[in-house]
């Protein structure tokens, strides 16, 4: 509920943040959409989040396949290693990535942001994709190969369509986690690659500008749309017998 209060506040005509708002105006939305700095940060956040979604899902799928299907020594240790970023505090990750990336000249670049965010998104991705894969009936792959499809065609015709809800959930999750990530962004953004959350953070620190309420409202709307669309997609897919990851 406190989150929703932001929405009416964003339509306030006054210069201070207040509730309930007195009057109605779209001036803060206008100020957001006409300020090139805000738009620049927003677009950057989108680019970074898309990159993270793609990269972490790709790595997540490959790792999950290896962990679920493979049989090799040290599988337990490898699993623990892949999931280990989950137990490290974000601030420690942020500081260590900052030192590491500064040597590689990745601080202040979008690539640096993508890599850092991907590293924290991978464990979640592996968990989501692996739990989808565990529920996947391998007999279907055997049936496909028996019917004349080689491994690659089997993957694209049978395996991928049946686990795609898991992949889409994983990608959406990675997207959202990168899009509203602040702490790593504070360290890696530098002065050149400022993301939307970083810019909002700066906005709160230096001046309490009601433009923030407009941005927050847009943020809320966007997340809601993303979640609803994944839900809608999942339901439509389940009807066709697709797999979903257990919640």
């Amino acid at each position, binding site marked *: 509920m406190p989150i929703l209060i932001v929405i009416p506040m964003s339509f306030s005509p006054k210069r201070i943040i207040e509730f309930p708002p007195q009057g109605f105006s779209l001036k803060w939305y206008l100020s957001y959409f006409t300020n090139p700095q805000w738009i620049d940060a927003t677009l950057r956040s989108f680019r970074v989040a898309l990159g993270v979604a793609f990269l972490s899902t790709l790595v997540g799928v490959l790792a999950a396949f290896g962990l679920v299907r493979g049989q090799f020594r040290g599988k337990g240790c490898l699993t623990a290693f892949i999931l280990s970023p989950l137990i490290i505090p974000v601030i420690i990750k942020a500081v260590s990535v900052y030192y590491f990336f500064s040597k590689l000249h990745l601080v202040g670049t979008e690539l640096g942001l993508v890599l850092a965010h991907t590293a924290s998104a991978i464990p979640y991705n592996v968990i989501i994709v692996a739990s989808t894969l565990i529920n996947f*009936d391998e*007999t*279907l792959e*055997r*049936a*496909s*190969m*028996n*019917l*004349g*499809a*080689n491994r690659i*065609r*089997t993957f694209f*015709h*049978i395996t991928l*369509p*049946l686990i795609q809800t898991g992949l889409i959930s994983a990608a959406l999750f990675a997207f959202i986690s990168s899009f509203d990530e602040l702490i790593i962004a504070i360290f890696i953004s530098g002065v050149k690659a400022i993301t939307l959350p970083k810019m909002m953070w700066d906005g709160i620190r230096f001046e309490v500008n009601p433009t923030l309420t407009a941005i927050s409202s847009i943020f809320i709307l966007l997340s809601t749309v993303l979640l609803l669309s994944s839900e809608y997609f999942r339901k439509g897919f389940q*009807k*066709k*017998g*697709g797999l979903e990851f257990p919640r």
Partner: protein
Amino acid sequence: MKDRHVVLKEVTKRFGQVMAVDGVSLEVGRSEFLTLLGPSGSGKTTTLMIIAGFESATSGEVYIDGKPMIQVPSYKRNIGMVFQNYALFPHMTVYENIAYPLKMRKIDSKVIEEKVLRILGLLKLPEYSDRYPSQLSGGQQQRIALGRALVFDPPLLLMDEPLGALDKQLREHMQLEIRNLQRALKVCVIYVTHDQEEALTISDRIAVYNHGRVEQIGSPEELYERPNSAFVANFIGESNLFEARIQRIDGEMAICTGDNFYCQVQVPEESAVGQNLRLVIRPEKIYFVRQSGPENGLTGKIEEIIYIGEMTKYSVKIGEQMVRVKRQNRWGEKKYQVGESVSLGWSPQDVRVVL
């Protein structure tokens, strides 16, 4: 067999310390229906998986149509297969499922449509082509799986307990349907089941599996009438097993005695006096006699009587052993009571000496 389609030579599969398949050799004819029958874990499914190319053999060779198959990947073997749980693709319609093997063979879409519709007609399911598998009953899914395995005209069809999930009535109906389809298409079928009744109904020949080996292979009649081992005698139908010792040999016949009984049996040539034999006799071949004759004699007490409609089953205690007897319920058949003393007899030709 000169017209053989599938040949297995000394096929062995080891999982760690366990011999799942232990030196199996089989020959299957071009339009033969062979069933691999055995208890679970006896290696019959593993054998099928090796033929399909899903498991590699530890040693041995598989030939299909004269060509060695061990190095050939499953998608190039051109074998139809029906899986235990059907393995229909849940994200494809019935039509897409059946069209799948044809699509993988890059066949023209017009020809695909023609073939799929023909198969759906053959299976009497033409109106279901747009449904998804989850919208079909078990029996319908079973037919679609069969259709998908046959649509590309494979010369060999493998079936892994395909009727296991269906109820008894539907199962019996499908047995006949599969049998008729196999005869019509003249396809070679290797069928796995643990249900001996199903195996007897459906097969040309049956290979009985036990502990990774083929115990005996033969027609249903051979296996039932002339089992080689106590295992086969017990696995296919009911039987009574007796331990006996040869007392006297008279040509082909020998007089044997055991605990509380004596009998005449036809013995193998190399038998000698004093040798121990294991004898098998089917419950329905034993009858009640007023007095024991010279061929055989055993006397005991009826412990249990079960009426099952066309037959009555008796358990007769002879010494320490329980002997099962089945008699048809005909007019004039004498009625017995529990606790009554009875003498049993049979024709010497109905006794089998087993390993």
